[in-house]
């Protein structure tokens, strides 16, 4: 009854060190189980975090309006191929009650030249509301204002990648660059935001007023894209239907005809992606948990062997006064120490795998303390649960028969 637990633990360690290979193989199931739980959860958390970042990078309550696809003689073109959206559409949308602000966009690939340097990048014509919609402030200088937008001013705000490529460590603000042979004054530099979820460098960009873009570079009167920021997350769906109704009216589309534009609710899409990443993580962790279960069965198996092998020892212990409880405790502690040992090794391995994945693959992994604590608790629980039957069997041996066992 009072046999000290410490001695049981000590004795458990002795048993394992005498059977190193067997103990290791027994715990291998637990090691692999715990390692895969840790690794998969860290991958899942990493994925969730990057989706969260992507959502934030999309801007607040963002809706995207694209021109529709055309069907000319059976050939269906992709989105954005039609010139059905105009700057006037954008201005009308801005007045809708559920809409906070909007920005129309045109994107083109152009060569940007400063003195001897040049850099091919994406030039985007947009509205002065762009920093608000995209949650994307400038760090140096300033963004162009409404006035500059309306007057088609030759001003540009550049991303950090473009700044580095053309100016190195210099402050680009105030310099004049050539885009499409038109001189532009750089008035600001955008904050670095890195790569998006699809691996594109978002900082490789030059932003100019959309009117300037339309009149001086693209020479067109339609826009590629209109980005809209709804008043709140709740309002995104209301805004979506208001915009659809408005554009149908503006474009004179009869009731039976399809839209010549698309309204996409990106926040919703990102949230769906986020929750599917979560479900995926749970599924992966469940598969890993199954291997923990199999590991537990391995422990039960070897503990049963151990009980049989040590029948005589159990008989001796009972003869000198061990009660049922003492024997039960001894074997439960042995199986728990065994699986805890496996759990600790498994955590080490799992952390290693997680770091390795982070280092060699584009996947970003995040390790938190929760899965580690859960793994430790779970592996001890596995030891107790699967050790119980063998321990119970041992404690119920008849001392006379146990002593006779050879």
């Amino acid at each position: 009854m009072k046999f000290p637990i410490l001695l049981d633990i000590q004795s458990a360690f002795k048993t394992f060190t005498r059977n190193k290979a067997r103990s290791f193989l027994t715990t291998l199931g637990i090691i692999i189980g715990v390692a895969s739980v840790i690794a998969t959860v860290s991958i899942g958390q990493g994925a969730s975090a990057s989706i969260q970042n992507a959502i934030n990078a999309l801007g607040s309550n963002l809706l995207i309006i694209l021109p529709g696809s055309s069907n000319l003689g059976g050939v269906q073109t992709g989105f954005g191929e039609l010139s059905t959206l105009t700057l006037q559409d954008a201005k009308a949308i801005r007045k809708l009650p559920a809409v906070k602000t909007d920005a129309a966009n045109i994107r083109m690939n152009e060569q940007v030249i400063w003195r001897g340097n040049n850099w091919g990048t994406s030039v985007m014509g947009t509205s002065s509301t762009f920093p608000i919609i995209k949650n994307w402030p400038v760090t140096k200088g300033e963004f162009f204002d409404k006035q500059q937008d309306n007057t088609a001013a030759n001003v540009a705000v550049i991303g950090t990648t473009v700044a580095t490529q053309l100016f190195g460590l210099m402050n680009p603000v105030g310099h004049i660059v050539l885009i499409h042979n038109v001189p532009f004054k750089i008035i600001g530099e955008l904050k670095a935001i890195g790569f998006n979820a699809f691996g594109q460098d978002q900082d490789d960009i030059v932003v100019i007023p959309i009117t300037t873009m339309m009149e001086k570079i693209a020479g067109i009167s339609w826009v590629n894209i209109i980005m809209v920021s709804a008043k709140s997350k709740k309002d995104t769906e209301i805004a979506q239907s208001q915009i659809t109704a408005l554009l149908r009216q503006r474009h004179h589309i009869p009731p039976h005809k399809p839209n010549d534009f698309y309204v996409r609710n990106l926040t919703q899409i990102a949230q769906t992606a986020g929750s599917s990443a979560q479900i995926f993580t749970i599924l992966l962790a469940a598969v890993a948990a199954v291997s923990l279960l199999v590991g537990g069965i391995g422990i039960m198996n070897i503990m049963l062997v151990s009980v049989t092998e040590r029948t005589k020892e159990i008989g001796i212990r009972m003869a000198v006064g061990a009660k049922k409880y003492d024997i039960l405790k001894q074997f439960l502690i042995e199986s728990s120490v065994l699986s805890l040992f496996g759990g600790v090794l498994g955590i080490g391995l799992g952390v290693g795998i997680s770091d390795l994945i982070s280092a060699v693959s584009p996947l970003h992994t995040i390790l938190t303390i929760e899965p580690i604590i859960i793994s430790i608790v779970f592996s001890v629980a596995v030891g107790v649960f699967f050790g119980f039957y063998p321990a119970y069997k041992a404690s119920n041996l008849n001392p006379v028969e146990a002593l006779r066992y050879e």
Partner: protein
Amino acid sequence: MDSNISKTVIRLEHIGMIYKTGAINYEALKDINLTIYKGEFFSIMGASGSGKSTLMNILGCLDQPTSGKYFLEDEDVSMLSKDRLADIRNKKIGFVFQGFNLIQRLSIIENVELPLFYAGVAHKEANIEAKKALRLVDIAESKENNFPNQISGGEQQRVAIARAIVHNASIIMADEPTGNLDSVRSNELMSFFKKINDERNVTIILVTHEPDVAAFAKKHIIVKDGRIVDN
């Protein structure tokens, strides 16, 4: 002998033991009546299959009779729970078996400490008691941390005696203790039993089929076909 033996240690009244093996009932012990006094050196002799091992298991509280009453130091132990019996074995009875029955993965000293741990004695104190018991059976301190397979059979059996007496048991059950030893070692071992019997007044119950060994005892019974035939 003299004044000590007046106190009853063991009293068996009409003890019977029936083993049920499938449909057949095997009667291993029939109406055993026996009284053993404090400090006696008692031998139980009999051929194999006579029932002497069954009797020994009952006397040692390892097994319980199917009928009759067993009083150990005036307490009726024939109906006690397994855990109570374990307690009684721990406090009152020491065992010495034919096959030594030391735990191979524990050191000599750990084997001797074992009964004290199950009694809840602190490690430091248990260690002191175990050392004392080992000195009594002439096991040198240098061998204390050896494992059982590193010492001779005679020494292992002396360690078993040390384990039996370490908790100041009032009875020692010795089941064919010399069975695995040659005659020189046998005599040596028996002299230790005699010494413990003389010096500590411990009741010793010796089960054997060798007359030479039984000769160390002062009282004898012979078991045949489950009955005591000669007293």
